């Protein structure tokens, strides 16, 4: 199957390892991955911060760049949610990674091996915009050697929220503090999620606190064959 990778501007610039993992994973599962190099940003940051005209221009640009592809896959629940809301023609052909694996490819065992203790932050937009349900858990449960530990209050927001993390930094940090406590309670080595934006926020504080817990995008675990 030929699929176009919608990497997102954020992952392209700051988390290329996630993109590399998606390519490794999809190719291992027999997909042909293409990367439309014209892609930049879907407009979510502008749209959600109150700059609807910029957001609209960027999401229309996204629509043009990806118009010719029958299947588009992205490792960001949040950006997929935004595009779905603004580009009706993306319905049925734009997939968040876990949706693509479970629904389109029909796999939960992706041949990964990752012998570590892991906890999953399910992310607000995965849960409440995309309704991905237990797909990430099913994928992780099939990874060889992986010890999946349930995160307390997992459905609660980590406090990232895009520009919210900066505009309301105190409130954002109060939310993050509770999320960190739950992460540390699991005694996991790795906190994973379907969105690097939440992970940058959670991971940024874990590193500041020298907590010894790593953050890793779900794709990187599913690509791993340790």
């Amino acid at each position: 199957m030929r699929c176009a990778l919608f990497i997102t501007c954020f992952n392209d610039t700051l988390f290329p390892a996630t993109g590399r993992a998606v390519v490794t994973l999809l190719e291992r599962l027999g997909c042909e991955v293409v990367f439309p190099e014209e892609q930049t940003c879907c407009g979510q940051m502008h749209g959600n911060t109150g700059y609807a005209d910029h957001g609209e221009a960027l999401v229309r640009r996204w629509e043009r760049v990806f118009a010719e592809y029958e299947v588009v896959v992205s490792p960001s629940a949040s950006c997929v949610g935004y595009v779905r809301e603004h580009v009706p023609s993306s319905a049925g052909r734009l997939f968040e990674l876990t949706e693509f694996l479970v629904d389109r490819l029909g796999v939960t065992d992706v041949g990964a091996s990752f012998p570590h203790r892991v906890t999953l932050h399910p992310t607000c937009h995965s849960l409440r915009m995309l309704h991905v349900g237990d797909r990430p858990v099913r994928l992780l449960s099939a990874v060889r050697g992986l010890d999946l530990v349930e995160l307390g209050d997992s459905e609660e927001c980590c406090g990232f929220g895009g520009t919210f993390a900066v505009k309301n930094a105190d409130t954002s940090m109060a939310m993050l503090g509770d999320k960190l406590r739950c992460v540390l309670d699991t005694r996991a080595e790795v906190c994973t999620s379907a969105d690097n934006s939440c992970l940058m926020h959670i991971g940024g504080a874990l590193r500041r606190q020298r907590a010894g817990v790593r953050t890793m995008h779900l794709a990187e675990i599913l690509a791993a064959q340790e």
Partner: protein
Amino acid sequence: MKGFPAAAHETLQNAQLRRNLGKATTTIRAKRLRAVGELPDWEALRDAGAAIKARAMATLPEQLERLEESVTRAGGTVHWARDGAEANAIVAQVARAHGSREVIKVKSLATDEIGLNDALAEQGISAIETDLAELILQLSNDKTTHILVPAIHRNRMEIRALFEQTIAKGEQLGDEASAIAEAARKHLRAKFLSVPVAVSGANFGVAETGTVAVVESEGNGRMCTTLPDVLVTVMGIEKILPEWRDLEVFLQLLPRSSTAERMNPYTSLWTGVRPGDGPQEFHLILLDGGRTNVLADEVGRQALHCIRCSACLNSCPVYSRVGGQAYESVYPGPIGAVLSPQLFGLDVHPTLPWASSLCGACYDVCPVKIEIPSLLVHLRGRVVREQKRRFSGERAAMATVASVFASRARFERAQKLARLGRGPIAKAMLPGWTAMRELPDPPKETFREWWRERSG
């Protein structure tokens, strides 16, 4: 107004508040889930609630005239108030006409919104709150933190001390909640039996029959709406329901969403006056107070569907940490963040639309399916467009970043700069971030650089 970020900065310092509120909201969330889980048709009820409210708002002028006619036919008097000042003046006038220096009050957000108690005080009339939590706030000059449980931030020992200094002077109330409540009961009984004028809000007003409804838990509302000679109800015009049968939907949606009960303990319904039974004079004040302006905003008007259940407050990760006072309005939480700026002015509450991480928990629990996250984004847009002097720096930065994203070449150049912690993307992201969090290590190459090398 301090604005949300500064006000939240203050309330977040209050460890007791955060603990009380965190505990209370966690408990009520779980209870609500159980209560709505009992109904197999919960989603259909939500749809029905949303549809009834949409119909009521789309036909508002007609429904209000129907209500006026049916209330008048049943022996009540209807007053129209453009704003809070007009509504307050009408209440004062009714109290004066009966020579009363006191009025007893049912818990009411509408009267809080218009500052009725202060307005009456200026006319030499004392408004006595009869809801236990409202009484606690009134006696301690405190402000509400929750629309349903206004004193959620106060604990038993604080309340005991307060009562011993006020309504139970000279008494030792002990540690038992029942004994502390008894002090309030004694104080209030005397008022119920002696004050001739009561003021209430309204949960619903039925256009078809002219019936007004108040739902409550303590029974103080029932006392106020039955014992005095005169009853004055201040009702926001959006509280109207077209038909009597519509109550069937809302009397299921409201208690399960608010207190997580199948049915609230007291549901009082009254239709005009009935000779020899209950108040012999009934005034219904229909309050606009900015509501028709809200109605003019095709997206924002959904906020008027709110039935004040407070499920969105309880489920909100922001509210449950900062508390109601951070919103600087009688309407806090997610619904407050979309209602207050519209009712009281974008210039008065310009920061509230950003007081959310857009996590979507509020929409999931809203019994009338108000799309609060979409409304927040819409109002952010309105503030940016209509409050030109605010955010001028941000507006310029956003325009620059948008023009970077509009071209692949510019984007790729900016990626290189961002890796060095410079350039427009980094500039837009950095401030406020690194105070409390590390930035990720800049990667050696972008994804697209890797892709190009790999593709040769």
